[in-house]
């Protein structure tokens, strides 16, 4: 059973990546915008086809890939992220002097990897997808070859990423050793035996998987790479990996742990409980002390991974659907916040500290309003999507009986309020000292901001529809 | 029994290799209208033995700044793979050491290790000429190994096996050289480059690099490199015979004789080329490899696959 046609969206993304590579050979000065346009068209086309796959529930390639609602939801999310990243990048990479055609190609290839992270139903598929996306993002992180920081970032990411892949692979090997198969379905079947649940080799494998995924979604104590890598990478790439890689890793994380390792819940829930608590407290506390806005957003990204873990611990109906909901909101608001950083940032790393935002509101009121919206949403203030997401997560935790964790989460959010509001204070309460932008806000970046802003508000006002979709996505996992 | 076979095979090969040096000198001499070695024995027939004795008793010099262990190890690394691969070469229908399923893969993977001997010899000598020779040879051997591997996929597809005996049996009717002329040509070129023979002998281009990677070697260690080179020539020839020329098969004469005749013809071709062709430049070598041979190899595989699927 190969069913190649089910993979049409992925194939479109891949072919777009290759077309972009070839089009870059055109001897034409304006070709870079053409490349971006082709990239956006490809992802949007793939997005439309992906949406048509809702409720399909099929398998392809002998059970290696599943086209279920879960993967459709995530694939749509990744394609949106990819489109927005390309829109934000057009102007930025020209300014930064890194407008090679390979940039878009690698973004598309990474998206290709993301998509299989969500749809892979075999540990081998998931591992390969993870490697594809990691390799593409390692290169993207080091794309500014003249900047030592970018080099440092790529190198750190590569070394630690390879290290974490080894953990994941070792975990897979352990599980293969006791089950004799890497397919998630077969592993689930193996776990239906009573004796299997106590097999120490299997448990060790599960632990190693947890470490591997933990690295990729950046939860404490596997977060060490995050601030440096986020700070050094080109900001568009930071945005892309802060949302894309995180969401993709969570997709695979959820499929493996919620579906396959469900019978072992008693073993992994306490561990995740602890990780979630540490991640929320640590991420939010350290974010306060950051002067660089990219580093601050990096620590905030760590904290947000902690909130999602809270929902994973809760594990009930509301909890699992709120994860998917929250990942969508998180992607939109984080991309938006990074979008503003991208627009304000100048060459030679100027305008990247938080105090540089002094008086932005008096020069660019719309931009500041958008930034405030995204920051308020990240902090979880109504009527934004971030508030609704957090509300669902914490109420899921309470109804699941994890009141302690919910309290830690709320306290964490309260701390977070401080460092998010600080930027708003800088933007509105001080007088501007300089010109921020060399020209008007670039069109494509503005378009991306408008899309993310509308999304963030809409998700805050009418969450029911998306939550229902999220519910249908995750409750059919594996059926 | 197996041990006796091993001793016989090793002895014969060593002898053949020794006389190959004699043959090379004689043939090239005659190609260039000279007469070659004449002093030791009748028409110089005992020359290889005299050479061997000389190399054995010569002073063995290890340069002061050399990495001693690696310096000593390199000739061994070079020689051992060249001889170990004979384990799976069927000299006739019944005379072979091991009949394993992955014979050809075994030959390729073991002979791929010879490059370490060369590159490490170049490095451990701590001499510029040797190092440059080692680098050149590593780049050349890695590149041409790929083409060597790719060029034999065609015949392997026809044979449907990696087993050397089965490959020869599959050529009972028609030799694969008829079906796979392109693959044969590619294999031959890659094989010559793989053994660092003229016109691809850049690693030891004496005008630029003195003697390449073995500049600093003397005595028996030097002899090892020499033996390895000739043993590798025989391996490449034997593989060509097995893959393209029907191995031991042939009318009237016993199999082992046919095998020897075919291998001998290849060895003569190697020497003939050395007497005839000039050396390529380094960039030419790489261009031929990657821009001409590699696409042709892929084309051959694709064509073989299509034709096999449609007609056989």
């Amino acid at each position, binding site marked *: 059973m190969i069913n190649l046609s089910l993979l049409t969206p992925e194939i479109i993304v891949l072919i777009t990546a290759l077309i972009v590579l070839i089009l870059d050979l055109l001897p034409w000065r304006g070709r870079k915008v053409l490349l971006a346009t082709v990239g956006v068209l490809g992802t949007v086309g793939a997005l439309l086809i992906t949406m048509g796959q809702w409720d399909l529930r099929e398998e392809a390639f002998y059970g290696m890939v599943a086209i279920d609602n879960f993967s459709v939801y995530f694939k749509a999310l990744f394609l949106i992220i990819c489109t927005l990243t390309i829109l934000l990048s057009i102007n930025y990479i020209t300014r930064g002097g890194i407008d090679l055609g390979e940039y878009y190609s690698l973004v598309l290839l990474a998206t290709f990897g993301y998509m299989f992270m969500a749809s892979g139903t075999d540990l081998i598929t998931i591992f390969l997808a993870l490697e594809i996306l990691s390799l593409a993002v390692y290169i993207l992180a080091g794309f500014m070859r003249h900047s030592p920081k970018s080099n440092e970032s790529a190198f750190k990411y590569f070394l630690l990423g390879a290290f974490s892949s080894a953990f994941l692979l070792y975990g897979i090997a352990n599980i293969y050793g006791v089950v004799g198969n890497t397919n998630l379905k077969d592993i689930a079947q193996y776990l239906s035996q009573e004796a299997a649940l106590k097999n120490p080799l299997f448990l060790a494998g599960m632990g190693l998987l947890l470490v591997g995924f933990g690295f990729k979604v950046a939860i404490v104590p596997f977060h060490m790479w995050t601030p440096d890598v986020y700070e050094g990478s080109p900001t568009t790439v930071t945005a892309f990996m802060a949302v894309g890689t995180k969401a993709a890793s969570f997709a695979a994380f959820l499929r493996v742990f919620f579906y396959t390792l469900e019978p072992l819940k008693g073993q992994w829930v306490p561990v995740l409980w602890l990780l979630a608590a540490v991640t929320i407290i640590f991420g939010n506390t350290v974010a306060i002390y950051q002067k660089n806005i990219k580093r601050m957003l990096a620590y905030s990204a760590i904290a947000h991974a902690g909130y999602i873990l809270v929902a994973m611990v809760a594990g009930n109906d509301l909890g699992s659907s709120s994860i998917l909901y929250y990942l969508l909101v998180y992607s939109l608001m984080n991309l938006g916040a990074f979008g503003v950083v991208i627009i304000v940032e100048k060459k030679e790393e100027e305008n990247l500290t938080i105090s540089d935002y002094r008086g932005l509101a008096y020069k660019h009121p719309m931009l500041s309003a958008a930034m405030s919206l995204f920051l308020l949403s990240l902090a979880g203030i109504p009527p934004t999507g971030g508030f609704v997401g957090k509300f669902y997560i914490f109420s899921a935790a309470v109804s699941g009986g994890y009141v302690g964790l919910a309290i830690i989460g709320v306290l964490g959010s309260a701390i977070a309020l401080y460092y998010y509001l600080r930027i708003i204070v800088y933007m509105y309460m001080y007088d501007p000292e300089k010109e921020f932008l060399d020209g008007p806000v670039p069109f494509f970046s503005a378009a991306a901001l408008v899309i993310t802003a509308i999304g963030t508000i809409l998700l805050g006002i009418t969450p029911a529809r998306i939550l229902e979709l999220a519910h249908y996505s995750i409750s059919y996992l594996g059926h | 029994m197996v041990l006796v076979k091993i001793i016989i095979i090793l002895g014969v090969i060593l002898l053949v290799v020794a006389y190959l040096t004699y043959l090379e000198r004689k043939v090239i001499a005659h190609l260039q209208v000279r007469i070659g070695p004449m002093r030791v024995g009748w028409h110089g027939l005992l020359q290889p033995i005299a050479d061997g004795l000389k190399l054995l008793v010569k002073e063995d010099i290890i340069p002061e700044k050399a990495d001693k262990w690696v310096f000593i190890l390199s000739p061994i690394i070079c020689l051992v793979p060249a001889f170990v691969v004979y384990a799976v070469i069927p000299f006739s229908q019944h005379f072979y050491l091991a009949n394993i399923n992955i014979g050809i*893969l075994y030959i390729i*993977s073991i002979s791929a290790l010879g490059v370490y001997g060369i590159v490490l010899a170049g490095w451990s000598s701590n001499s510029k000429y040797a190092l440059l020779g080692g680098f050149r040879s590593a780049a050349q051997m890695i590149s041409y190994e790929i083409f060597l591997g790719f060029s034999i996929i065609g015949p392997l597809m026809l044979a449907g096996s990696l087993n050397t005996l089965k490959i020869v049996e599959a050529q009972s009717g028609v030799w694969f050289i008829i079906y796979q002329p392109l693959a044969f040509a590619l294999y031959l070129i890659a094989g010559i480059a793989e053994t660092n023979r003229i016109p691809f002998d850049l690693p030891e281009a004496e005008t630029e690099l003195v003697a390449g990677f073995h500049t600093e070697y003397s005595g028996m260690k030097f002899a090892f490199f020499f033996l390895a080179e000739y043993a590798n020539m025989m391996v490449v020839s034997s593989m060509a015979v097995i893959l393209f020329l029907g191995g031991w098969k042939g009318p009237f004469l016993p199999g082992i004789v046919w095998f020897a005749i075919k291998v001998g013809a290849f060895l003569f071709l190697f020497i003939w080329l050395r007497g005839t062709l000039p050396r390529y430049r380094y960039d030419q070598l790489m261009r031929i490899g990657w821009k001409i041979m590699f696409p042709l190899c892929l084309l051959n595989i694709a064509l073989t696959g299509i034709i096999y699927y449609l007609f056989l």
Partner: protein
Amino acid sequence: MHQIFFWGFALLAVFSALMVITRRNVVHSALFLISTFFWVAAIYILLEAELLAAIQILVYAGAIMVLIVFTILLIHVEETKIINPWQRQRPIAILLGVFLLGEIFLILSRALFPESIAGTALQQVAQEGNTEAVGKLLYTKYLFPFEVASILLLAAMIGAIVMAKREIEK
């Protein structure tokens, strides 16, 4: 007989691996790494997985390590400069290492391995041979990973080209 060979190969593999990380000269480390691959390949042969053994030598010892050795020689980093990479963490590192090793032993000694796996694989190999069995699996059940791996290589290739490309001229 099998047991003796296995322990011999295994000990040699572990010894070589230890030498890889303790040698100060990078070229020596690389050589020991090659030898590690060899002994592991020998263990594959004991397990009657001769195709895997050949590929292990061809790919790791014959291709990847050649490139690594080549790179080491090109960029001249033969001697590692750092005298003590441990700083003051050595006791903690040793303690953790011993602890982890003990844990691995404990886990392995209590692990339950299903007996059926090894049996089925060997049966299949006995029926049609190593190469055929692997080939069939690669082109049926594992077709997808097999093909996707090529995209992984494509991404790596693009990356290598980007990193090696000259700077854009202004």
